[in-house]
């Protein structure tokens, strides 16, 4: 039995891309043949990823396909055509209304994705969400055999040291606040900027904000964010764009607080990553964030920017509170260790085999 993976787009460094690689490596280490098939991928990864149209050569009714589903695409049709056993790993689809003002094509694909999800119900052997929140959406869409597979997190990569130049530049006594994630409208980066502005203006002028993440395709959103920064007169806001992994790790390690104001999350990988790196987290309670936080860090239930700024100040100036937050984060982190997630996946696969026999 071989276990292969399907996905629409493989982007190096994003949570789904990382998970796909981790699952493949985990499965290969346990003796399974495992390949990745995608619709879009950078030519740089052509040695690791195959085009999904080439899957016919690998297809077998005893194989299992894990389809990482997060958007509508032609991969779904292929997934349904082949005779292999089918498992969908649902990473959630951002509601299309978030993109209407900025990216009509993506809005359409997200809308189509939700329609495809309903069509997939009853046609797959199992539906796994990477959070209970996502599992519930699968159930609501009509899936009967469901489960939760926490996102495979590889924390080993964080063992790398800080890039010396970045350390020289940003390890200068200023309080570094960080947001990591794509610069897209549902992440509400504007709310991060507003909170930071009030923090910088009224609590700590000696502070800077790192906004680390890809903005390609959302230039108009980026432009609006730049306009907001100018209008508010916020200083020291760094839009880094997409950065290589070593730099991402460095930005994380140079940060003193992680701030997340997103209004839709199916999981939110930077939260456990911050937990691992002992960065206190303040995040807004939306989507699966509460579940991902797992009672670690500080969850904000309302968008009151002044109080959020006050909270940031409190966390960064009260060592006792910071210690308690970090302890809660370490406790919350336990459920994310890689082997555990890999073993959960193998358990589900075993269950599928039992069901067949």
């Amino acid at each position, binding site marked *: 039995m071989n276990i292969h993976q399907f996905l629409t787009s493989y982007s190096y460094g994003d949570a789904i891309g990382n998970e796909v690689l981790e699952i493949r490596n985990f499965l290969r280490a346990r003796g399974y043949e495992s390949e990745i098939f995608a619709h879009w991928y950078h030519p740089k990864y052509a040695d690791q990823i195959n085009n999904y149209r080439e899957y016919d050569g690998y297809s077998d009714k005893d194989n299992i396909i894990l389809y990482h589903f997060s958007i509508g695409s032609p991969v779904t049709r292929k997934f349904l055509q082949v005779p292999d056993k089918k498992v969908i790993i649902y990473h959630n689809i951002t509601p299309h209304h978030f993109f209407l003002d900025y990216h009509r094509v993506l809005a359409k694909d997200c809308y189509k994705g939700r329609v495809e999800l309903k069509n997939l119900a009853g046609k797959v052997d199992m539906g796994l969400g990477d959070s209970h929140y996502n599992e519930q959406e699968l159930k609501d869409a009509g899936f009967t055999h469901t489960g939760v597979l926490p996102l495979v997190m590889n924390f080993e990569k964080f063992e790398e040291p800080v890039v010396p130049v970045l350390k020289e530049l940003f390890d200068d006594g200023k309080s570094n606040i960080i947001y990591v994630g794509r610069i897209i409208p549902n992440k509400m980066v504007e709310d991060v900027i507003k909170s930071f502005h009030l923090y910088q203006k009224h609590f700590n002028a000696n502070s800077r904000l790192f906004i680390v993440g890809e903005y390609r395709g959302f230039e108009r959103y980026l432009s*609006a964010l730049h306009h907001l920064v100018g209008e508010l007169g916020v200083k020291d806001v760094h839009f880094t764009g997409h950065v290589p992994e070593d730099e991402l790790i460095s930005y994380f390690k140079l940060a003193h607080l992680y701030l997340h104001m997103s209004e839709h999350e199916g999981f939110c990988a930077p939260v456990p990553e911050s937990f691992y790196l002992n960065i206190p987290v303040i995040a807004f309670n939306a989507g699966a964030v509460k579940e991902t936080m797992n009672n670690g860090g500080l969850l904000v239930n309302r968008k009151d920017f002044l109080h959020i700024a006050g909270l940031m100040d409190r966390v960064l100036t009260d060592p006792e509170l910071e210690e308690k937050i970090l302890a809660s984060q370490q406790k919350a982190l336990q459920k994310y260790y890689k082997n555990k997630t890999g073993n959960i996946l193998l358990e589900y696969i075993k269950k599928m085999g039992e069901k067949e026999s």
Partner: protein
Amino acid sequence: MPEKDNHPSTNESFISADKTIDVEEIMAAIKKRIQEKKDSGVLRQTEIDEIEDMELLPLPDFLEIPNVYEPHLYPEHKADDFHPYHIEPEEEHGLVKKILSKIRRLLLPLLRFMLRPFVSDLKNLVVELHNTNKQDVHNLKQTVPITFQSKEYIKLLHNAINNMIVESSKLKIEEELLKTRIKVMEDKIAFLEERERAIEKKLFAETGKAGKK
């Protein structure tokens, strides 16, 4: 405004955290700090409200531009024939209509009697007005033929203006996007300059150490 996604109710406390963290105490401290700032006049509620209400102003989508202006510019000049002074005759309906027609019928003999001396004059007047009107239209066509072609010109002008507005709007968006790109590039250049200095500093420090050894 996008709808909120699974947001907590407003009754929930501002912060949720592990039970080892006293959220009430944190909130009390934050509120106290904020109140102090407000009392000292450093912080004004209007400023906070302004920031809360501040919304992002996205540039319109290139593809959407024609759809933005078309409804405003086209409708009156799109149809081949238009009647700006076309007035629908008012008609009475139902019971009102019946009552009015009865009154009219009753008054008709009286009306005829009253108007009898002027009937021939009225008939002549109607004929005269009709002829004058015809003559006027004819004269107008002879003297200012352009007036009757102007409808087409106006349509053409509207098309041209519409296209110009669409294209200039696109240019404006492009300009704004280019400004953002310049801003991003400026930031990157500033960052690279700082980076260069940091590398130089590191390099000289390393070579200095090696030299001493």
